[in-house]
């Protein structure tokens, strides 16, 4: 199946069009420390695919004053929320697999905090305790498109982060050229459509250095009735996210995340979908080798009454990666990804009432091998 990036219904970044050698991505991260407690950070990406090739994924100021007890960190700008543990590397990369989990693939493409976030931490060790707690709160704007891709394409697995201001394509589903004619088959996820401020609030708990949990509630408080002149709706998207990281030893760890939420747009919720996904990842480091295995399970449930736009979907995926860093400037690795999904809105000509122009089997599986060579500077 062709990738959604090329207006197909597939859920992986690469398809038959990309077999062979590609420059997957190039990233540069800049950081400036000011004399006071402020820091400026920006990340630029180049991609060979998608709507825009070169652009920023994050640009933010961080304020982290020196305090004797409780710690404060304020971020202002455009940046990723810290919902999960999968993407701790520079440029929001994952050290585990090249393709992110379904949850974080979606975060990469449709979520960004464009606003401010304040984190208060009670560092356990300062208080002779093994428990460290943080409270995170954020208000943001310009995330009204979040939910669009989940509603039609469903969950996907990839590492294509949406650049700030970029638009993301997806298949021209029959309902989009039909009953939902205002809606084009692309989304600008980082757009302010309804002039309403969204928020998220989260709690982190860490036990010693081994175990950490993060619970978040996100709500962009979208007004589903608002739509701009380009057909970009404000999607009312809200979800819970719960993440876990546990280190058994220095070498061996597990990560897990669960997300459950809903999105809706249009008059009397013309398009409404509940979504949920989870993954379990384990990773083992042996000298300069890292082996990671992840299982993803994901689902969307159509909750509107629009029978011309049925968006139920479900699927699962296995991702296995070996990464090896023989030198500090070079990393190489192999990733195998198997993803299978069933989406109600994929239609074939033989389905009753289907448009002859679409040829998308509802159930599709894909195996994707990647041999990756990265230069690190």
């Amino acid at each position: 199946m062709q990738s959604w990036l090329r207006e197909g219904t597939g859920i992986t970044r690469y398809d038959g069009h990309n077999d062979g050698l590609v420059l997957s991505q190039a990233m540069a991260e800049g950081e400036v420390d000011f004399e006071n407690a402020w820091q400026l950070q920006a990340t630029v990406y180049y991609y060979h695919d998608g709507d825009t090739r070169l652009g920023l994924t994050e640009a933010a100021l961080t304020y982290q004053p020196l305090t004797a007890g409780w710690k404060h960190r304020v971020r202002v700008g455009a940046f990723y929320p810290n919902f999960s543990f999968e993407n701790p590397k520079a440029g929001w990369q994952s050290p585990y697999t090249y393709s992110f989990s379904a949850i974080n693939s979606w975060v990469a493409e449709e979520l960004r905090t464009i606003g401010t976030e304040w984190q208060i931490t009670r560092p356990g060790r300062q208080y002779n305790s093994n428990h460290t707690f943080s409270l995170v709160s954020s208000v943001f704007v310009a995330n009204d498109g979040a939910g669009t891709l989940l509603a039609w394409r469903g969950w996907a697995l990839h590492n294509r982060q949406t650049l700030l201001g970029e638009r993301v394509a997806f298949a021209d589903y029959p309902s989009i050229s039909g009953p939902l004619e205002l809606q084009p088959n692309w989304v600008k996820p980082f757009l302010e459509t309804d002039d309403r401020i969204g928020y998220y609030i989260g709690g982190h708990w860490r036990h010693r250095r081994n175990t950490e949990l993060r619970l978040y509630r996100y709500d962009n408080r979208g007004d589903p009735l608002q739509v701009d002149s380009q057909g970009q709706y404000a999607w009312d998207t809200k979800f819970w996210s719960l993440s876990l990281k546990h280190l058994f030893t220095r070498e061996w760890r597990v990560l897990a995340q669960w997300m459950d939420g809903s999105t809706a747009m249009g008059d009397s919720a013309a398009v409404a979908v509940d979504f949920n996904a989870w993954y379990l990842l384990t990773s083992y480091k042996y000298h300069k080798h890292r082996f990671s295995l992840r299982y993803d399970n994901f689902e969307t449930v159509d909750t509107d009454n629009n029978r011309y736009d049925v968006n139920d979907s479900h699927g699962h995926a296995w991702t296995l990666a070996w990464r090896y860093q023989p030198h500090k400037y070079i990393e190489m690795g192999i990733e195998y990804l198997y993803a299978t999904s069933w989406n109600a809105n994929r239609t074939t000509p033989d389905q009753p009432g289907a448009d002859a122009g679409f040829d998308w089997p509802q159930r599709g599986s894909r195996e994707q091998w990647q041999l990756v060579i990265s230069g690190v500077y």
Partner: protein
Amino acid sequence: MCFAVLGCSVQAERFSVTVLSPEGNPVEHAVAALVPLDKSLIPEVSTSTPAVMDQIDRQFSPYVLAIQAGEWVNFPNSDSIKHHVYSFSEAKSFQLRLYKDKPPEPLAFEKPGVVALGCNIHDWMIGYIYVAESPWFGISDTSGEITIEAPQGEYQLHVWHPLMKPADLAREQNVTVATSSQLAWTLQEALHSLTHDHLTDEFDEY
């Protein structure tokens, strides 16, 4: 024995302290320091080489460093990420941004006392510099034992550990250093139950 040509004046005796928990288990990372009752006997700092408090795997290394007041300490950064080390302690208040391969100038620690170190980026990082009044101190190993070479005389013995509770922090004892002497120092209260472990995550916030 003393040879005039070597310039030594006083014979050093071996003074050993074993620090034990209330249950009798050895306590690691405890500092024992001897302060002569006659403080005029305290010699000037003799070393010009700075001591080292490194950052390795997002931890201070060593966890506890002991120096004599007047000594210098270097703060290298062996990690590939940056640290922002600080102290609000009365004995020495400072902050240092530590970048990879850019070691800052060493810092002087003139005032005796305990300097608690933190990192503003990695909140779990905690380390201590015990600034002793005299050159006669030591840090316990896993057996809880500290051996100090000190001249004969009357001293006040201080025993300190980062996780000690107030009753033990207030304790001090006068001791006589004569020929080889051994002392067991049993804590009155259990240490705070904080675990000092070296399990670190290379992917924590950088």
